[in-house]
């Protein structure tokens, strides 16, 4: 895996997440719902990384980027770490089962992204609640996470189409030793 190029991709994904994502944010009774571009990128990495360890490391970096650019949450500043941990574990799990799915199918991509996004968000919300000891909005935030996962799944095929154009630029071709 070409790590420098991957870091650039992570930076671009995060810039889109904190700025352009405002264009596709929907206000609902549950709260604001937007596309989780980092989750889509994590699924993309899990699909195409040659080694499981690469997928976990790459997902950890993505999760850390999300943690470092999340300013609000349950009560005050959120802790850094839950998303990095969650993304790494889920990325490794997804890498293990990816061969059971047709990765090029839009429906598969959307379904797996929805599951990944929901699991990561629930893990983040639960970790924050446990650490801060604040549970007042736990239920409503979980419902909001479901809405985010569904909305992200709807946009996944389009985002994956764009990300797949970068696959050759980031992932080493078969037969090359991982860097």
């Amino acid at each position, binding site marked *: 895996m070409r790590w420098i190029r991957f870091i650039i991709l992570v930076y671009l994904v995060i810039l889109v997440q*904190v700025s352009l994502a*405002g264009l596709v944010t929907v206000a609902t009774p549950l709260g604001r*719902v937007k596309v989780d571009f980092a989750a889509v990128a994590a699924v993309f990495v899990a699909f195409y990384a040659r080694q499981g360890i690469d997928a976990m*490391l790459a997902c950890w970096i993505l999760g850390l980027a999300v943690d470092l650019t*999340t300013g609000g949450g349950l009560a005050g*500043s959120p802790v850094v*770490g839950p998303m*990095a*941990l969650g993304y790494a574990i889920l990325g490794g799990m997804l890498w293990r089962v990816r061969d059971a799915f047709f990765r090029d199918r839009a429906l598969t991509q959307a379904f797996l992204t929805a599951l990944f996004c929901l699991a990561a968000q629930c893990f983040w919300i639960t970790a924050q609640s446990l*650490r801060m000891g604040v549970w007042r909005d736990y239920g409503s935030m979980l419902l909001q996470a479901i809405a985010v996962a569904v909305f992200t799944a709807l946009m996944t095929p389009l985002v994956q189409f764009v990300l797949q154009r970068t696959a050759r630029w980031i992932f080493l071709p078969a037969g090359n030793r991982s860097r």
Partner: protein
Amino acid sequence: MALRARISKQSILVVLMLLSVVSILLGPTAGQALRERIMWILPPAEAGTVVAKWGNDKVNDLTADNISQADARRLKVQNEALQSKVDALAAQLTDRQEQLRKVQQLRNLSFGPIEDIPCELIPARVVAGDSQVYGQTRVVNVRSARKGLAVTTDRSKALAPNRLSAIALPPNLEALSSSVLVGRLVESGAFSARMQMVTDRDFNIRARIQRKIDPNHADQSRRVLTDANIGLINVNAVGDGKDSLTVTSVKESDHVLPGDWLVTCSDDPLLPAQIHVGEVVEVKPDPRRGGFVNLKIKPSADTDTLREVFVVVPRGKDALDKN
């Protein structure tokens, strides 16, 4: 070479996962410090924020109410009639303003000039939002600002009605009186700072309810200023994590109505002025306490298209000491 061979990717991953756990255990203070260190990488997101604002403005224009041709013609005729009335009133207003200036001069001679608010207004722009949907924060491009400072925006660009100033006010007072509070700074980096919006679920402010007095008010008791409706009601407002603020435990006898305003307390050392926060849109009885009501406040600033803001930096030793 031997060292590189011993450090495997598995070891790196284990170390990174352990660091994540340690960071979680260290708590929000460590997280805040880490976020402040890397905040300098976010300003390039401003280009995306500009595009997102442009897109949101276009969507707002497209979804605005359309009117028929007949209504448009009727409104045009009405507009022309109103324009001539406005011209006549403008002449009367000029006379009144001249009289008011003379009164102000007399006042200044008797009591001294109106003192300006001792603060500095630093212009800034919103460059990025929050990575996730659970917090309502924005990144603004202000350098090394102190945490806790209030952030305002110009009310003429916000949803609240613009108040015409009939008398000359000192510059800071003039600027703040036409502003609305949008949030406060909670994290500060070298080139940018993170602002917690008033709608964030962790936002909390001591504020006051100012009753709206209007000669055409639906409620008769609000058509004229009286002792009963002149006072301000001290409240505590919290963000609801969505698009409004909530005020609880307001006495029913205070007779708060939709349309009343939420304003800041002028005795706050970090914001020594009374400025708008939002407008009461809903008054509901408190289900847990008889004789009390809960209020829903809609912020006066449009959080979706917010761009230009001001950071209020109080001046003077007392303000710094209290801070």
